[in-house]
């Protein structure tokens, strides 16, 4: 009972903060609401006894990603006015399409297939259960192959980010004495034979 109350509190908080992320005008506020939604989902994961994932979510997303994101939002002076210009004009069409999609998808998904009584409640495991161990076991045995591919994807992301942002030292206007010393006469002087012009 107590768990259910906690669940509903955090689930409600999650939905509230997630909808605030996309509706508030201030981008800094939006980023902060995103932090709140990460926190609430971490709490829900804790209820599922997935402590490691919950802590990783807070540490990685809240601690690192979102802080960086906030920096970017604050550093870049994004002018949001032009982005909002067409909002009122496209609103009717957008809302109509969205509502139609919602109804169509709702009709398919919410029918009897995903009823709550068809899905069994998660089993509570005792205090001896370690989520971290289980996760590690699964990652390095059953899911070794996808785990390695994910590692390769992260490596590609690093290579891409570095190659897209580093500037080569060549573009700086530093002098290179070694090359200056090696210069030969032929490189710099062009001797042109021409007729003497009349004075």
């Amino acid at each position, binding site marked *: 009972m107590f768990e259910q109350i906690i669940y509903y509190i955090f689930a409600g908080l999650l939905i509230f903060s997630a909808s605030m992320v996309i509706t508030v005008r201030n981008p800094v506020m939006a980023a902060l609401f995103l932090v709140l939604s990460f926190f609430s989902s971490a709490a829900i994961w804790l209820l599922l006894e997935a402590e490691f994932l919950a802590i990783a979510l807070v540490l990685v997303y809240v601690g690192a990603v979102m802080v960086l994101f906030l920096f970017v939002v604050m550093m870049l002076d994004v002018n949001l006015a032009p982005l909002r210009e067409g909002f009122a004009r496209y609103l009717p069409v957008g809302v109509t399409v969205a509502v139609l999609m919602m109804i169509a998808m709702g009709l398919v998904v919410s029918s009897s297939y995903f009823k709550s009584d068809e899905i069994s409640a998660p089993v509570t495991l005792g205090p001896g259960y370690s989520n971290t161990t289980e996760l590690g076991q699964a990652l390095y045995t059953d899911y070794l192959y996808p785990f390695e591919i994910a590692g390769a994807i992260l490596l590609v992301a690093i*290579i891409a980010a570095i190659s897209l942002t580093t500037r080569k030292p060549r573009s700086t206007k530093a002098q290179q004495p070694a090359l200056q010393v090696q210069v030969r006469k032929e490189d710099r002087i062009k001797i042109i034979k021409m007729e003497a012009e009349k004075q």
Partner: protein
Amino acid sequence: MILQSDIVLLLPEITLLSLACAVLIIDTFSRDPLRNVTYLLGQLSLLITAILVIYLYPDETTYAFGNSFVSDSMSTVLKAVICVITFVVFLYSHDYLKKHEWMKGEYFVLGLFAVLGMMVMVSAYSLLIVYLGLELLSLSLYAMVAMHRESQSASEAAMKYFVLGSMASGMLLYGISILYGVTGSLELDALAIQISEHSEHGILLVFGLVFVIVGIAFKLGAVPFHMWIPDVYQGAPTSVTLFISSAPKIAAFAMAIRLLVNGMHPLLGDWQEILIILSVLSMATGNIIAISQSNIKRMLAYSTIAHIGFLLLGLLSGSQEGFAAAMFYVITYALMSTGAFGIVILLSRRGFESDNLDDIKGLAERNPWFAFIMLILMFSLTGAPPFLGFWAKWFVLKEVVASGYVWLAAVAVLFAIIGAYYYIRIVKLMYFDKPETMTAIKASQQMRFALSINGLALLIIGLMPGLLMSLCITALVQ
């Protein structure tokens, strides 16, 4: 449990990953501004991987890593073809990057990682692996498009590709999550069994299927998910366009086979109908809009869309022979596209992309041999006998008729005839118009050699298509 035999099956991928990392490190320490070492090592890695793939040709279909990896004839053939095509792409790209003084080692490193992603996709036998392989491929491609930072059009193309590509990945993932939610399995075999057992969940399965098809159609570039193709093809540096238009199409084909045939064969009737619409729309849009293009890269982009329509015809015929015909088609298309963009690279020079139709005017006067190669490529893309492109269209049409869609074959032929106009217009420009410039064509010996082989291959394989076809049949018909 990880068995030793699992590791052996995965050896080509492991080797490629290790070699790509080695190339990355060597490139970091290389001081050569021309990046010759990186380039040669990259080519060597592809060759080693291709040899390993062929050496490990399985006698029977084998699974590894708890049924998430499959090694069968199709995966072997497609992986080898991907390695060979990428080898040719690297060869042309090296020339392009040197010509435009924009040599970057990361180009080849990311190319190798893209090949790894394609190999993962080709051998994927679980929804999770399909998705991860696709992401590995796409992420490398986004970075390659954006790599030319000074070019505004390349940045714009990269941004469009990235945003639309992420949306398509999201769609695919949503479809996968629905399928997983209904059947409770990620492995494709188990998925097929679950689907045939739980026919009462029909609507929900088709709901998931639709999103999966959106993902596949986006990666292939089928209408109406084709918006990115013209912009990315035109905006990206020609060497990257060349890469995107060749090997990844083969991987996308393999993804379609894995998901639709291996995973969702019980839903054949449902995806057949969807693919018919996609196919007809692609052939119509591609062939008709290509007529009005004045940029060769953009024209070839619309031609890609039209060819994807034809490829889908093979898939939707639903028989093993039809899939083999589609495989034949995609390999042929990759060869033709590599050659066509190769010619664009050949004609370009420093600071000048040479991608307008006017730039190809009078090529026969400037260089008769490469005008002839381009002639072969264009006739092959049209589908004129005796070139390889004719057989690709022929086999696909034969299977479509065999599966009872005679009207569809008639529509396909009609659009192919419309398409012939813009291919043959290039031949007309090359042979009957006066050149606008007589600048000599600058290209390395190996580029000239490879491009000649590439063009002549279409003629030679076209004279004896039985060999490639029997390869495709053994790959797909169990």
